[in-house]
């Protein structure tokens, strides 16, 4: 139905987006690739040259790197497991005919709108602080030693903080999905004597599959880049105990000012993200078609 000129106009209207996104991703990526094979330190800018794979080798030989890789995957995986399981449970709870459901939704979604540095700083200071935090007051109230969250369990603390931020998102999506589930089906199953566990297993869970897929996809995109929470609380420490790959690269670039090494780290991060994305895109691609 569309004419030749409409088609041309349509292409022209898409062009700016494609061009700016291309410049935003592909050009810097090419530059990162170039830097990753160069000796380039901002503190000694005169010494430059090709160094082959030395920057990459530095990463692979650094004990921090494998820890950072593990931490990155543990952070993404940990938060996904916590938010999906708790999210489904809380959504099921709120979905029941309870009083004040609108207000409940507002309370539950609120942490999602709290910017990462504020979320991290609330938890760090008002809750996890060894002297003045609420948790230490609680511990002392029970006659126990306060737990040194950020010193002794830095990665778990960060996982906890990030889970608090993303649990609302997962819950809200599951809640929305649950509300499109027909109650007739559940009632019929109930009359046929299906136990609550069976109703969950065979009716509710299959209905939520799509929502769970979407939550995993979207959260992974954001979780792979978690930065503000770590920057605000542990700065990757103590030592490298809570350093993720993005944070390690940030330290190389901004603190150590070693552009070559940071660039090599960036390329490694891209490869990692591509491996993760490959599996995820197959998942969501299937869902988008129908």
């Amino acid at each position, binding site marked *: 139905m569309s004419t030749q000129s409409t088609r041309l106009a349509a292409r022209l*209207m898409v062009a700016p987006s494609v061009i700016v996104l291309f410049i935003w991703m592909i050009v810097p990526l090419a530059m990162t690739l170039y830097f990753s094979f160069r000796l380039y330190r901002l503190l000694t800018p005169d010494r430059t040259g090709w160094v082959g794979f030395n920057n990459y080798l530095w990463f692979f030989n650094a004990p921090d790197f494998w820890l950072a890789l593990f931490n990155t995957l543990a952070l993404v995986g940990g938060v996904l497991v916590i938010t999906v399981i708790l999210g489904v449970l809380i959504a099921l709870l709120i979905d*029941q005919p309870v009083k004040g459901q609108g207000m409940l939704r507002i309370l539950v979604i609120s942490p999602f709108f*709290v910017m990462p540095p504020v979320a991290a700083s609330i938890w760090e200071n008002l809750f996890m602080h060894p002297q003045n935090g609420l948790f230490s007051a609680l511990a002392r109230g029970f006659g126990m030693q306060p737990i040194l969250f950020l010193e002794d369990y830095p990665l778990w603390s960060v996982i906890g903080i990030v889970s608090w931020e993303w649990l609302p998102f997962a819950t809200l999506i599951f809640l929305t999905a649950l509300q499109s589930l*027909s109650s007739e089906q559940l009632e019929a199953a109930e009359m046929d004597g299906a136990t609550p566990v069976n109703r969950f297993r065979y009716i509710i869970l299959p209905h939520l599959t799509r929502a769970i897929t979407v939550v995993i996809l979207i959260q992974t995109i954001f979780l792979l880049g978690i930065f503000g929470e770590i920057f605000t609380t542990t700065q990757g420490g103590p030592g490298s105990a809570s350093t993720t790959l993005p944070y390690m690269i940030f330290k190389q670039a901004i603190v150590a000012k070693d552009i070559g090494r940071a660039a090599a780290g960036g390329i490694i991060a891209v490869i990692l993200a591509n491996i993760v994305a490959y599996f995820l895109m197959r998942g969501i691609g299937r869902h988008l078609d129908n």
Partner: protein
Amino acid sequence: MARAQSPRRRLIATLAAWGVALTIFFPVLWMILTSFKTEASAVAMPPQLFTADWTLENYAEVWQRSDYPRFFWNSVFISIGSTLLGLAIAIPAAWSMAFVPGRRTKDLLMWMLSTKMMPAVAVLIPLYLVFQRIGLFDTRLGLILALMLMNLPIIIWMLYTYFKEIPAEILEAARMDGANLWNEIVYVLTPMALPGIASTMLLNIILAWNEAFWTITLTTTKAAPLSAFIASFSAPQGLFYAKLSAASAMAILPILILGWFSQKQLVRGLTFGAVK
């Protein structure tokens, strides 16, 4: 799936749901309560939920700090600026992909989404160097550009899913009546698309306001918004709890309120229409 239940079960469910919801909300509530305390009662042991000596002093003091309003207005400019610029580029693109789809439209959309999967750290170095070279480092314009580009795929996707729901028959009818492309956009599409555009705008202001990677790495002081300010504020002088809480409360309240109004759109927006 509302179903009939006995009053007793209903009461238990209500209590449990409220208990869980209040637990999740509690850190925000505790921060807001702390922001009204004096510094002494903020760290009092045992902790006090309410104090007798309420004060607005913390808010006044934080706002009168020479630099806090600057961080605040930087946040306002950057989040609104990047969203408007993003919409200006995204609306034509999403419109044409929704109404004049080509063979490769789906691939193009997937490619745009895949750029979101690219870790920001991978392009940090070139951007950091280029921004310093061409004078965009630590400027509002630089951050507006960076955040606009970061969120552009999301903006396009959201608009695309909204535009997709506008029936194409209406456009055909308008064309039969002799409307040209311009009239079609101004008189037919825009009014129908406005709700979608509005919720896209709201959600992206929220995302830009809360962004905490580019705002921290691409600024020092001049253009730093609230996210960068709070991130550096908290570390060593952690004992100013009441003031820290007041600064934090002012940083999140505008967005919290916007968020409450847009939470219905949030789900379909952030899932690109996959969950409604």
